[in-house]
């Protein structure tokens, strides 16, 4: 976290160019730009700026957003539930779908359905978000009129297309891993033993699934992180007011303080999700414990 604070945020946010040049109109003079830069604390040496930055971090607000003139952290936290909502729906679509696809494929390897799952999961991983999003808009919003082209609101009509777009990659990756993990389990002696003893196939399936769950949960956590943090393109295409869109808007406006606050929240989210995944391991496998 300290590394994020010191390196990623400060360095990257200072690589995006001079915000003052963008905030003032083309005709502004050098003196006017200098004056604005001073008022924003964007002058002085590298160390001075780092000091000012740490001061903003320590305050917890990350300073006033240059764009909206309110505490930057307040803006980010305001967008967070909307991003969680989208990520949550995408997660609900992707994990059950992917686990089902991977399990079925593993149940009958090299069958037609296995090949279908392989091809479609590879397609999902390879699909470019903005292209998939626009195609879904053209089909379901423009063509069929079932869903909204963008924006945020109650009901599935708003969330379903961005969630579907986001879930393609997660479905592809998790389905492939589930398939290989399940194949691995099916080849183990305890499954052969269970079959020899006449255990019903559905019970064998659940045993194998549980044992295959650890890598799947790890990857699901990684994908949930991606759904939370990697939704910038999808949020822009669908005008979804989450932190991804906020980050892009902050970058477009060279709103340094808002960029810093957004990246900090994204970093914390990644840490928290990884922690939750680690804790889930103990529930999945009692042999794993944290002392």
């Amino acid at each position, binding site marked *: 976290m300290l590394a994020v604070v010191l390196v990623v945020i400060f360095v990257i946010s200072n690589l995006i160019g001079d915000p003052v040049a963008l905030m003032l109109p083309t005709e*502004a003079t050098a003196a006017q730009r200098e004056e604005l830069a001073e008022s924003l604390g964007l002058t002085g040496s590298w160390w001075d700026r780092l000091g000012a930055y740490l001061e903003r971090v320590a305050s917890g607000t990350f300073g006033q957003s240059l764009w*909206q003139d309110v505490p930057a952290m307040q803006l980010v936290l305001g967008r967070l539930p909307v991003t969680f909502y989208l990520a949550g729906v995408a997660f609900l679509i992707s994990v059950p779908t992917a686990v089902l696809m991977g399990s079925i494929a593993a149940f009958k390897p090299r069958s037609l359905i296995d090949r279908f799952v392989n091809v479609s999961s590879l397609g999902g991983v390879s699909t470019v978000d903005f292209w998939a999003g626009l195609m879904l808009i053209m089909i379901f919003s423009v063509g069929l009129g079932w869903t909204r082209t963008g924006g945020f609101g109650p009901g599935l009509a708003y969330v379903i297309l961005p969630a579907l777009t986001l879930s393609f990659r997660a479905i592809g990756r998790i389905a492939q891993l589930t398939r290989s993990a399940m194949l691995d389990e099916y080849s183990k002696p305890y499954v052969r033993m269970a079959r020899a003893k006449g255990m019903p196939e559905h019970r064998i399936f659940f045993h194998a699934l549980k*044992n295959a769950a650890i890598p799947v949960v790890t990857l699901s956590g990684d994908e949930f992180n991606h759904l939370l943090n990697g939704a910038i393109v999808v949020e822009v295409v669908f005008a979804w007011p989450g932190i991804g869109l906020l980050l892009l808007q902050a970058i477009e406006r060279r709103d340094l303080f808002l960029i810093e606050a957004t990246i900090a929240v994204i970093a914390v989210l990644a840490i928290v999700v990884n922690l939750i995944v680690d804790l889930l391991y103990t529930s999945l496998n009692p042999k794993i414990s944290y002392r």
Partner: protein
Amino acid sequence: MRARSRNGTRSVGAVAALALLAGACAPDAPDDAGADDDDGDVVADAEDPDDADDDTEEPDEVDDAEETAEAAGDDEIVVVTAEDPPTLEAPYGYSATTGVVLRNIQEPLVGRDRESGEFVGLLATDWEAVDDTTWRFELREGIDFHDGSPFNAEAAAHALNISWSEDFVDGPLLGFKGPDFEAVAVDEYTLDVELESPDPILPNRLWMSPIFSQEHFEQEGEDAWREEPIGTGPYEFVSWDRGQSIEIELNDDWWGHDDPEAAGGEATIERATYLIRGDQQSRVAAVQAGEAHLAERLPADQCLNDLGDACLDAPNIDIAHIRIDTMNPLLSDIRIREAMAVAIDREAIGDELLPGPPARMLVPDGATGYNEDIPIFDFDPDRARELVEEAEADGAPVDQTINLRVEREKFPGINEVAQAIQAMWQDVGLTVDFEVVDSALFLEELIDPPRPIDEDRGWVVLHQHSNRLADFHGTATSWYQCEAPISTWCDEEFDALTDEAGGLTGDERHELLAEAAMVAHEDIPFIPVVEMGLFHGVSDDLDWETRADTNVYLKDMSL
């Protein structure tokens, strides 16, 4: 075995529960700054709660804001626009792209004729120059602001003095600022603007400066002024969900209902929702899907190809042009600059890449100083080759690389236009390097770079210029004159002519500026390319009479 199985099921369930926790309950719309009333200063303490509270209610839910064209009533309009205004305060919000909402709420003293673009009275009925440094405005009587306070000379003076003060003029108004002035109320409906030095086009400048309620500003404070505009216009502010949407509704008491001719339009649409959609294709899709009546400022190719008849080609004032580092050893040779000018196939660019006619100057036809005698450079690659060879024979460093630079995404299709021009110049024997530069760095180098500019830089910049005041003097002082911040050229005769024109009005001003424009044309510090088109997506049920000044007013529309 059974117990372990249950344990495993619980684990998978826990993962799903996490997702459920996040996704089961749809949250409220993000509560950004515009909707923030934690301290109550936006919506509370209104002097007249009956009126003001109704008008300034917080935009609680996006389901209100996300009314669609289909769901909206017959007299409600949905507009999708690319940019969220940085603020709704009068001096900053009145630009072409960010003032699209504000112009319907607040009105200036001086308006523009829809067809000719001439400056005409709006909140002022008449004006005259009392002496060299004083302009007197007679104001329209019997008008109230949306908060019920009266519009009079005192309110107008207050709004002008605030908008053009040092505190606020650093915004979009900076490019339109003339000499300092103070506005004073002479009587209830007579306003004097007293200038430090003569400014013959002050009334034109005031078109940029809408009048807001003095009472609202003083009682509610600057935060409310920035987020909850109060004016005299045909529409009243309802709500603003930052980065998402803005809603306004018809002002039933608007003075223009009784006199549409003087008001320059007839407001009939009851309510308007502006949806902010940064993605171009998403704006196009919103019109295609019937979610929006109007998608503002679309890229030409997407608008023409995807929307067909629903794409409206509106008048525009933006000129695509090329600025040349004339201090560079190669580019200082007039033959090279002329070769670059005649090597560009403007017809092809205007037909295929950037729809619009070839440009003559950096200001459009009708602007003060527009000189019809200036010839548009003909496309003549043979002549260009001759000029390059001639210059080379005389020792010009023709091998030197010309650095063609553009600002990232300055306008749709800019990269393709630049690449076409690069190929055209290379075809006549020049060496051209093309690079897209990030906005911040580009602006640092374009605007007032450290002087003197490095001779070796050799920048040739493809850019866009919009002269909103339709007066070449502003372009001259910002872009052409020796001391102009954006200039890379110096000509004493040009400066003398434009300085003299700055103190004149009418035909004299026009003639001198036109003469100066000819001087510039002959030395070619800038190469005008095309007059850029302006494209909007418009649904079948929207009737809209566009304006010469390019502003988008709801009073020009009906459903």
